[in-house]
Structure formats: structure tokens, C-alpha cells
């Protein structure tokens, strides 16, 4: 039994979620405050992965970041990172692919806060950044948690994108979802069962934790 794919899946999901927190918060905040004409364009781009087949994203990723392409060779040369058939490439693609799951909850959470809360903080001489950290985010904890958990879970469930740009290199890009596919093809049902059951239980626990926490059940239980 090879634990590599499961370990790789968790590593990918954690890395992706971590980067998404850093990217999603400023982006969600900006979307909730801006009146700029580019807002609908950015909103559309962020939401595209929801409707596009993952293979489309993977295909363009290959085209743009392939080692013989301009951008791909530039990144390879100057940063020493190859984005195709590698773990960093998997992370970048996953970040793009799960972006709406992080940005949308944060965006709608911040939009639903009364304007006066943020204005009151600004009038107290706090910067926009301080206001976001001390007033904005603490008051949208459920939305933040939803974003984090959904991004994490969604990354675990990836298949198409990972297959297109990662291939299936053991311990580098062969995540659990792909390993299952290959084990079934090779008629190794026992291994496929193990991986599948692991993902099933993980998805159940992760999603249930959102509903427990956001539904206030845990608070009631602990009281």
C-alpha cells in the first residue's frame, strides 16, 4: 500500500488553501469595496473555473506555461521553476481552480457588513488594512471558515486539471484522485477502495465541520 498519493493530496490541498487565504482576502475585500468598471470583469474571471471544464483550464495552462513557450521558459530560466508536470505547477493551477470558493464567501461576507462599521473604524484614524484585520475579518468568521474549508475540500476533489498539467508522476503529481483512476484501470480494486474510502471520510469530516461550527452546534454542545 503506497501512502504517497494521499500524502501528496493533503500537501497540495494545504498549500493551495494557504495561498488562497493570502490571495482571497485582499481580492474579496477589494471586490466588496470597489466601484470600478473592471469589477465585473474580475468577478467573471474569478468565477470562470465554476463553469469551465477543468480540462480547458489545464489545456491553456499547458499552452502558457509549457517549457518551450515564452512565459514557461522565462519562469524556468529566471526563477528556476518548471510549472508543467511539477508540484508547484499543480499548486498554481489549484489556486486558480479553487479561487471562487475562497473569494466568493469573503466577498459576500464583507459586502453584508454595514458600511458604518468600516467607516467608524476609519474615523478612528485606523488604516484600511487595520480596519480589515480588526473589524472586517473577525465579523465574517463563518464566511472565512466556509471559504477555507471549501477551497481545501475542492482541491482534494480535483481531477481534470491535475491530470492535464501534472501527468501522474509518483510522489510529485500523482494525487489520490488520479491514483484511484489508475488503480481501477489496472484492476487493483483493493487499493482503489482504500484511497476512495479515505477521500470519502475526509470529505465528510471536513464538510460536516463547517456545518457544525457555522450552525453553532458546537457552542451549544460545549456550554
Amino acid at each position, binding site marked *: 500500500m503506497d501512502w504517497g498519493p494521499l500524502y501528496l493530496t493533503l500537501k497540495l490541498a494545504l498549500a493551495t488553501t494557504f495561498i488562497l487565504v493570502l490571495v482571497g482576502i485582499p481580492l474579496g475585500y477589494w471586490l466588496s469595496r470597489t466601484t470600478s468598471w473592471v469589477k465585473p470583469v474580475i468577478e467573471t474571471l474569478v468565477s470562470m473555473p465554476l463553469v469551465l471544464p477543468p480540462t480547458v483550464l489545464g489545456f491553456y495552462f499547458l499552452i502558457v506555461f509549457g517549457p518551450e513557450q515564452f512565459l514557461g521558459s522565462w519562469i524556468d530560466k529566471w526563477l528556476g521553476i518548471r510549472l508543467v508536470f511539477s508540484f508547484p505547477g499543480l499548486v498554481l493551477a489549484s489556486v486558480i481552480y479553487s479561487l471562487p470558493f475562497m473569494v466568493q464567501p469573503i466577498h459576500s461576507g464583507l459586502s453584508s457588513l*454595514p458600511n458604518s*462599521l468600516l467607516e*467608524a473604524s476609519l*474615523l478612528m484614524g*485606523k488604516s484600511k488594512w487595520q480596519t480589515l484585520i*480588526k*473589524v472586517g475579518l473577525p*465579523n465574517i468568521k463563518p464566511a472565512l471558515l466556509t471559504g477555507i474549508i471549501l477551497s481545501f475540500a475542492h482541491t482534494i476533489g480535483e481531477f481534470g486539471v491535475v491530470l492535464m498539467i501534472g501527468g501522474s508522476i509518483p510522489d510529485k503529481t500523482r494525487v489520490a484522485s488520479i491514483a484511484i483512476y489508475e488503480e481501477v484501470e489496472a484492476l487493483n480494486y483493493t487499493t482503489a477502495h482504500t484511497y476512495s474510502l479515505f477521500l470519502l471520510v475526509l470529505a465528510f469530516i471536513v464538510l460536516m465541520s463547517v456545518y457544525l461550527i457555522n450552525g453553532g452546534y458546537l457552542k451549544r454542545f460545549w456550554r
Partner: protein
Amino acid sequence: MISLDIHKSLRAEGGVMDLRVNIYIEKGEWVTLYGPSGVGKTSTLRMLAGLMKPDEGSISVSDTPWFDSAKRVNLKPGLRNIGYVFQDFALFPNMTVRQNLEYARKKGGNGNLLNVVLEMIELGELQDQKPASLSGGQKQRVALARALVQEPKVLLLDEPLSALDPAMRMKLQEYLGKVHREFELTTLLVSHDISEISRLSDTVLVMEKGRVVKKGKPSEVFFKQQLSGKFKFTGKVISIEKADLMYVVHVLVQEQAVRVIATAEEVTDLKPGDQVMVASKAFNPLLYKLDI
């Protein structure tokens, strides 16, 4: 102290409203903006606070320019040293009462002020509670206390008492008057309540459709006839009924409904919802001590 001369086009009901306001407020003065909804009272307050940018004009306070469209001056809200009490209180739900005040406190400000304010506005017992567990009146007091610990020179109040019941209003008007005097503030209030305005303000500015149409002491502005009698109440017309040759007008004064007999001539331009003054002078009032 505050000199404000601004212009802004606002989107309003039924098209664009042209807001043009030119006012001057003395140091220590209490000025109230009065008028129907949507005439630009809150917008005026927001522009003074820097939360809304005027199209053109200038705002200066104590000879410091806060806004000047010609010179492209626009001081950030946080640098204007303003205490602002919002209509919805805007208390931070994630912080306790004390944390709300601590967050608002000016850096390097008077360290003891927070405790003085907590005591003065009687919030000591509530200081460890979160806003969600407070009543409307308590929230209002926290919002006022939070504005005060910023050590503002100017206090802006946007219909701060409109969500409260009459008894609570009376109590809070006391607090407001007290802090205005003791902290030597210059206060600008937005209010619909004539009795509140009469009680608190030095000057009232009546606004209509983006303009200040009347200015003066509350007694001059609201009570045209100078009566010799001492009984003057303001109230709101609830209903007008015809009874034989006369009319019976029901008026809500504070929380009490009063019946007033009126002639056909008197009711011609009255309709339910109008603000009216009920005055009486031709009788000798009786006084009863109430044991409460």
C-alpha cells in the same frame, strides 16, 4: 470654527438633487439640521466627516482646511478628529464594550479618559459585554462613549435617538447635553424631533431639497407666534374628525394622545402626520404631585 461651503449632486428619489450648503458654526455651539428625509442632512454630515466627497467647495475647521476642491485638499476621515455617532450605532460586534472604546482611543491620548467616560455614561457594569447582548439605549450610550474617547473637537450625531422609546430618549438627551458641555464640544445633530431639538440646540437649520431654507433659535424657527402662555407642546397629528360644526384633532404629544377642538379654518392645511404645536394660555393649570 467650522466653515462649510459645499456643493454636490446627489442621486435621490425622482432624479438628481442639488445639495448646496453654506454654514458657519461657532466653537461650542450646538447646531441641528432639521428637515424631511432625503434633503441632504446626513450627506452634509458625511461630507464634513470625510466619508463622502463634495463635488466642489471648501470645509475648514479652526482655520485648518479639511477639504478644498480648488487646492485639491481632502483630509482623510481619520485625521479630522471627529466623533461620529451613527444611526445604527456601528458598534463592533466582535469586541466587548470596553474593547470597543479601547479600539477607538486616540494614540497617546488621555489614559484615564476611558474610565472617566465609562463612569460618566454609566457603562461600568456593561463593559465586558458584547454589543449583541445590549438594549437599544445601552448601545446608544456605548456609541456615544466610544465617540468621546476619541477626544474629538467636533461631535456629529446622525439621528442618534430615533430608534429609542420616548422615556429612553429623554434620558439620553440628558447625557448628550451633559457631554456637549463638559467636553466643550462643537456638536452637529441631525434630528426630526422638535422637542429634542428645542431642548438641546442653540441653532437649528431647516433644510429642504438640498438647501438651508431657515435658520435661527429653535423657538424662533418652530413657534411662529410668540405666546404669553407657558404651555407649548409639539406633537404629531394622528387623525382629524368632523364633529358637528367643529373638528376634533387627535395629536400625539410624547407618548400621549390628546384631543384638540379646532375650527374648519384651522384644519384646512392640516393632515395626519403633520407636526403641530399645541398651546394653551387661557386657564390656570392645576398641579398634582405624583408618587412614583
